[in-house]
């Protein structure tokens, strides 16, 4: 069972009552997760898991120690606290220690829906059964993953802060493959409200993409104009977030570093329509009410109208630099300041280019320029003279993300929508980019 606020408060108070150290931060969490995994048009694994955990970090005269346990009985909590204190006594002084926060006021962000927390095994089985039936009708072999999670967590500090939040999420991803293995299509969505997850649409999209991907032709790897669907944008930006760290930038080891210990903050390094932000109260993608170390989360622009507006300052680094710590990010949103274009408009305006569904196995190749390598997966189509002509086999790319979003390379930006599965949802638009660099063919399907 998920912890109620009262139960969570009792546990954090109990943990703090065991603390002898000068300062402490404690947290307690509980979660329930259920899933069905299917493949070969059949059920593979399925199950449910409950778990909970308690964490404690203490500082004794600036020496820090942490401990955690998943047993919430009194003696285990006491042991966890005492172990953290023992560790702290052995540790050297932590020069980055900043006292924990006192009482804060949090503005709730939502994101918990009972219907999501209470999906029954029978309802889940039936939904997947329908997907399998639809796939069979289209002679598609489906694989997929349907997962729901509900969590409740609280944190507290010895200096008097306390916060409690619950959230839910349900997600479904489906991959279709033709029985000869020559085409593959994928679609995934998630939501905190099970009533807003359209499982039939997800299956339909995966099946359509699989059918539309048949008889793909090989094209030479080269620099192409591309239209990235929101999922493809999500795949790339997932490797982008950590790059906004202020300390790395000021230490000279980030794509946002400038000469002489300075940063590129304030410079227009992206297309002027691009905004990258975190908004805890976004209706589609509610974030955590608290950012780092319990600071109440706020709406934060990292990129505003193409300008590097903010870097992320930890509490320690902010103090070093005599500035405020950043109240985020707690989610990832990209949106256009201009008039959004539809994917259809992007296609019809393209003389020659590629429509990309998704990327796979992305890794950093050069952190100085946020350069990545990876591959296309589950759907690439050639566009000529404003129309989709035929499906294309996959490519490997090598591309700097900074250059990809730079002024002059972003042709069109679409309407942002919630993409990703239960673990990595974000709110992103489709993008039309003038140049994207593919370096080799991949015959994988």
């Amino acid at each position, binding site marked *: 069972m998920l912890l109620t606020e009262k139960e969570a408060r009792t546990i954090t108070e109990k943990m703090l009552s065991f603390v002898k150290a000068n300062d402490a931060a404690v947290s307690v969490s509980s979660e329930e997760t259920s899933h069905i995994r299917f493949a070969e048009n*059949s059920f593979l694994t399925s199950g449910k898991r409950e778990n909970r955990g308690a964490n404690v970090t203490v500082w004794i005269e600036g020496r820090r120690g942490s401990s955690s346990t998943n047993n919430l009985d009194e003696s285990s909590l006491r042991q966890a606290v005492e172990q953290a204190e023992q560790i702290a006594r052995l540790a050297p002084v932590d020069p980055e220690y900043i006292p924990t926060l006192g009482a804060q006021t949090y503005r709730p962000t939502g994101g918990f829906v009972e219907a999501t927390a209470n999906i029954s095994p029978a309802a889940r089985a039936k939904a997947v059964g329908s997907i399998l039936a639809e796939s069979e009708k289209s002679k598609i072999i489906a694989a997929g993953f349907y997962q729901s999670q509900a969590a409740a967590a609280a944190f507290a500090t010895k200096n008097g802060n306390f916060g409690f939040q619950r959230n839910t999420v349900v997600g479904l991803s489906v991959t279709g493959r033709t029985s000869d293995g020559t085409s593959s299509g994928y679609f995934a969505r998630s939501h905190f409200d099970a009533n807003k997850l359209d499982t039939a649409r997800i299956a339909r999209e995966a099946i359509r993409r699989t059918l539309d991907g048949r008889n793909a032709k090989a094209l030479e790897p080269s620099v192409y104009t591309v239209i990235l669907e929101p999922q493809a944008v999500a795949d790339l930006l997932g490797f982008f977030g950590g790059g906004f760290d202020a300390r790395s930038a000021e230490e000279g080891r980030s794509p946002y570093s400038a000469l002489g210990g300075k940063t590129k903050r304030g410079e227009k390094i992206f297309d002027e329509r691009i905004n990258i932000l975190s908004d805890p109260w976004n209706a589609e993608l509610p974030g955590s009410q608290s950012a780092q170390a319990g600071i109440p989360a706020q709406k934060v622009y990292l990129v505003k109208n193409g300008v590097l507006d903010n870097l992320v300052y930890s509490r320690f680094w902010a103090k070093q630099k005599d500035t405020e710590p950043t109240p985020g990010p707690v989610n990832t949103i990209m949106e256009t300041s201009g008039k959004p274009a539809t994917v259809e408009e992007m296609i019809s305006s393209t003389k020659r280019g590629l429509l990309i569904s998704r990327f796979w196995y992305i890794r950093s190749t050069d952190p100085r320029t946020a350069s990545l390598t990876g591959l296309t997966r589950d759907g690439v189509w050639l566009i000529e003279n404003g129309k989709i002509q035929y499906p294309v086999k996959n490519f490997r790319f090598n591309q700097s993300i900074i250059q990809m979003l730079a002024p002059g390379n972003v042709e069109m930006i679409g309407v942002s929508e919630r993409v990703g599965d239960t673990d990595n949802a974000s709110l992103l638009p489709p993008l039309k980019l003038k140049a994207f660099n593919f370096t080799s063919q991949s015959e994988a399907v």
Partner: protein
Amino acid sequence: MSSSRRDFLKTAGLALGTVTLAPWVLEAEAVANVIIQDNKNKLADLALATARKLGASYADIRINRYRTEAISTRERQVQNVSRNQNFGFGVRVLVNGTWGFAASPDVTEKSVSRATMDAIEIAKANSMFQRKKITLASAEKVTANWKSSFQKDPFDVSIDDKIQFLLKLNETALGVKGVSFINSSMAWVNEQKFLATSDGSRIEQYIIRGYPNFSVTAVDRTNGDFQTRNSIAEGRAIGYEYVEKPDWLVEARQAGEEAVGKLTAKPIEPGKYDLVLHPSHLYLTIHESVGHSTELDRALWWEANYAGTSFLTPDKTGRLQFGSKIVNFFADRTQPAGLATVAYDDEGVAGQKWYLVKDGIFVDWQTTRDLAPRIGKNKSYGCLHADSWGSVPFPRMPNVSLEPTKENVSTDDLIAGVEKGIMINGRGSYSIDQQRYNFQFGGQTFWEIKNGKVVGMLRDVAYQSRTTDFWNACDGLGGESTYLLPGTFNDGKGEPGQSNAVSHGCPSARFRQINVLNTAVQASRRS
């Protein structure tokens, strides 16, 4: 109280003088262990009897405790020291050819009974819509108690010793002129696993794994450049003796020098090169291109929605020329210090050794009890694994290793046979497609080879190839003296995602005419 617990009290007290971890922590843990030990068999009997009564054709229960310890530092300071304990159970049932699973941290009769009923309910609900029923290969009934091979249990070593080790590493690297930063850390994992199956097996295993590592950064503020050099050594399933060798300080200094050296190294000219790959690099290429492609669940499209399928298919078994004739890959869950080494897998099948590629031909697969029947086998190779009591066990990679040549060939001998080439050390950027054909790998350090000799350092190197082209281009293997057993501590696969630790032994090896690109130039190409 186990002997290792008693040793802890002694060694911790000696090592730390007046300050030790409180004895009560240890005593309380030991008491809890004794209580749980008595209960485990009763709880297993309850789960298995309940499952059988409610219609399961097979059931198993894992009651596991995981302890982890992590210490992280940067430069001259400790960032964090943390210890974690995690305990719980998971019940798996097979009903009408359909799996069900339920897990909880409440290790009580009431909770075990309820979870077993939940698992049955899930399996039955899904079985209404099931198409292909799951069948299992048979397994021996086993009673066993096993410990992985280690000399010094890291959980018995004082935290102070560990901190001093990391800070000394940092000081050594920072002593190199031009080094700006170093991050270092060590992680230790202890799995205490109990498995009971409806076949009658009862197995206890105690496993230790460790992963000390560091990353050195040199920043050139004048030119706005920075380069990193990560540690070459990887995780291993051995004890604290792993970090008590002087090689670590030698490597920290070398890493510092090489991070600085990379700032002024010669950028690679793209083209075809012969490659000599050190085991510290080659292991990851083996992992991605051989380890994952020979997983039978991928070949049957069980991973199609996430990690992907495989270019290998059952009809290619015994036929496909995977590599050149000198290439032999074996799977082995018995290799001492191997990260995936166990006595028994998570459904009671003994760890074993078998060939995947023999004399260059692809000959066999990695299997579990529900996979083996799909290729006509009546026994599993023992590849089932769950990363937690709360995770559904599923097929995971055993240690997959490349055999060295029987001749006495050194890395220098391999280099001597290269006119124009590159020697690569260490694990860098890595990416491979979802069927394990097309890959791109970077490394930590790159060395230009000219006329049989290493002549200088290179930078911005990555090579791209296709799995079978690459392994067929292998024309030289080092001997036993070049063989190492590196491994990866966190290999992700499956949904919900799980992490697996796995090693890949290999000698140095040579590959002819591989496509090499300059990562700095390629990523910025505009037309």
